[in-house]
């Protein structure tokens, strides 16, 4: 902890020094407040650690994703033959599978959320700010897409383009931005009534400048919170798609796949559920803590 707080002091000092010389933005202020939030910073480190394991984990293990060990079937975690997390019913090494799963799950969670964030915020803020006919057309388009079932959409994608991990990104991303755009539109509708938006107009700022500088920064709080809920959601959606055979395919794996397999063998090998389940739960907790911290940090009045 001493190391942590010392590091934090250094960061604080560095940031304050930077703040004095360079122009300071909302983001730099937010960062400074964020690093003082213990739970959020702890979560960042845990998440970085999990990400690091996802990258190097499969490399430090002597086993690979394709290896089967007939003599080690359903072995609990052991140092024997370096099966640190045990093996599953097919004799595959769980350590390698867990961190390969982490790669897929984290990538899907972050990538699709980033896509949803980008499209959703742009779409929602433009619709909400301009209002009237533009708003009507844009939001009815969202309604139409909403009516399209996710599974149906993904089955079409898979049929047309074949099985591909990127289709999962596109499929989930195409659905998740809809909710995001609705949230952003709603927030924009309330923010654009505020006097500061009219004041900005009276100061001669163009519509796009007002949206970018005066509307979006003021709705970022709820959006960030939604993002931290969206990442876990996409990880879970991916897991049920994989369970149905529409997502990642063996021998590739994800946390969703591992958990669904582990759940079916809970009597014979509880570690098959507990290990990936723990990693997923910890990751989701971390995202939630980070979201919480970001919301506090991004709200200058919330100090």
């Amino acid at each position: 902890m001493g190391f942590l707080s010392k590091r934090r002091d250094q960061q604080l000092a560095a940031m304050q020094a930077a703040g004095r010389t360079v122009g300071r933005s909302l983001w730099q202020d937010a960062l400074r407040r964020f690093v003082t939030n213990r739970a959020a910073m702890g979560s960042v480190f845990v998440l970085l650690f999990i990400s690091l394991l996802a990258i190097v984990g499969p490399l430090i293990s002597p086993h690979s994703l394709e290896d089967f060990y007939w003599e080690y079937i359903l072995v609990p975690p052991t140092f024997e033959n370096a099966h640190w997390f045990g093996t599953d019913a097919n004799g595959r090494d769980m350590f390698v599978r867990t961190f390969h799963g982490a790669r897929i799950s984290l990538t899907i969670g972050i990538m699709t959320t980033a896509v949803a964030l980008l499209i959703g915020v742009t779409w929602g803020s433009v619709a909400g700010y301009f209002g009237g006919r533009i708003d009507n057309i844009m939001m009815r388009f969202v309604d139409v897409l909403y009516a399209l079932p996710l599974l149906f959409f993904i089955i079409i994608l898979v049929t047309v383009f074949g099985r591909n991990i990127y289709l999962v990104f596109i499929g989930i991303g195409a659905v998740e931005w809809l909710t995001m755009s609705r949230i952003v539109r709603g927030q924009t509708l309330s923010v654009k009534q505020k006097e500061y938006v009219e004041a900005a107009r009276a100061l001669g700022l163009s519509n796009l400048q007002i949206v970018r500088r005066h509307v979006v920064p003021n709705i970022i709080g709820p959006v960030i919170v939604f993002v931290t809920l969206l990442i876990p959601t996409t990880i879970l959606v991916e897991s049920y798609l994989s369970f149905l055979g529409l997502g990642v395919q063996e021998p590739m794996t994800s946390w969703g796949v591992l958990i669904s397999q582990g759940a079916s063998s809970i009597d014979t090998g509880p570690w098959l559920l507990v290990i990936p389940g723990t990693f997923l739960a910890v990751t989701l907790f971390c995202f939630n803590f980070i979201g919480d911290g970001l919301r506090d940090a991004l709200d200058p009045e919330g100090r």
Partner: protein
Amino acid sequence: MSGTSARPMRTQGGEAVLQCRDLSVHFKTGEGRISAVNGVSFDLHRGQCLGVVGESGSGKSQTFLAILGLLASNGHATGSVMLNGEEILNTTRRKLDAIRGEKLAIVFQDSITGLTPHKRIGDQLCEVLTQHRGMTRSQARTRAMEMLELVRIPEPARRFRMYPHEFSGGMRQRVMIAQALLCQPDVLIADEPTTALDVTVQAQILKLFKGLADHTDTALVMITHDLGVVAGLCDEVMVMYAGRAIEQASVDSLFYDPRHPYTRGLLACMPRADRDSESLTAIPGQPPDLSELPPGCAYAPRCGQAFDRCLIERPSLDMAVEGHLKACHLENAP
């Protein structure tokens, strides 16, 4: 309003910086068409201060929102507004963006919500300069800092980095005044700038405006319902009632020799320290419904001196004496 062009104002020479002719504003609502402003005309010269007085809903704010192109989407303005000889009413958004904040600035009543809560004061000030003047950040910073000093914000360098919620109401209002003045606009419109503030802060803000009016050649429009503010600050006064200008005069002429019964009523309503009175006087009745204005004088139903003609024929804004316009059928003030 042909009488208006002949109106000799107390000019500082040259053309009017803001010339408003026959400005009308309508709103389309579910209950029909509402005329918020009807045929308002005035000239504003450099360094001059125009007071606009009226009750709530008399159209005083809408007149100037229309000039700035800030009407609500169901509003429509007609007439002519010339800024430095150029028509600006109902012009393109691009043109409006170029003049708003640069030549024509407004300070709103609500200083609490007039600044973006998620941006530092400094950034909000610099934004105007980088936008209109193409300044670099450091140039803008220097200029904005000067402006904060001008509006008497102590420690501008430290305040520069603060957020709006860290300021008191009076200071926020001063920041907004600074923001409006950054580009040295030709016309500054102050829409009830002191209403949301307490009396001592009000006095400070008014002193600030007074200083501006005296030391710069920015033309000032003070929209208020406080006649005391007008008396202390303005050169010319326009009294509005139900969307029309009913009396326009120099401040001395209006206060010492009011020609319209409504203006006299307003003056009588002012509480005075030098007179012993038990209660506050008030003008009886309510302002009329703007969607169904009477055919005659809008003030007639409340006017103690109204006669037959007032109910049938609307009085035009005519010259009573040199430089003093009034819209009333009563020929001589009793």
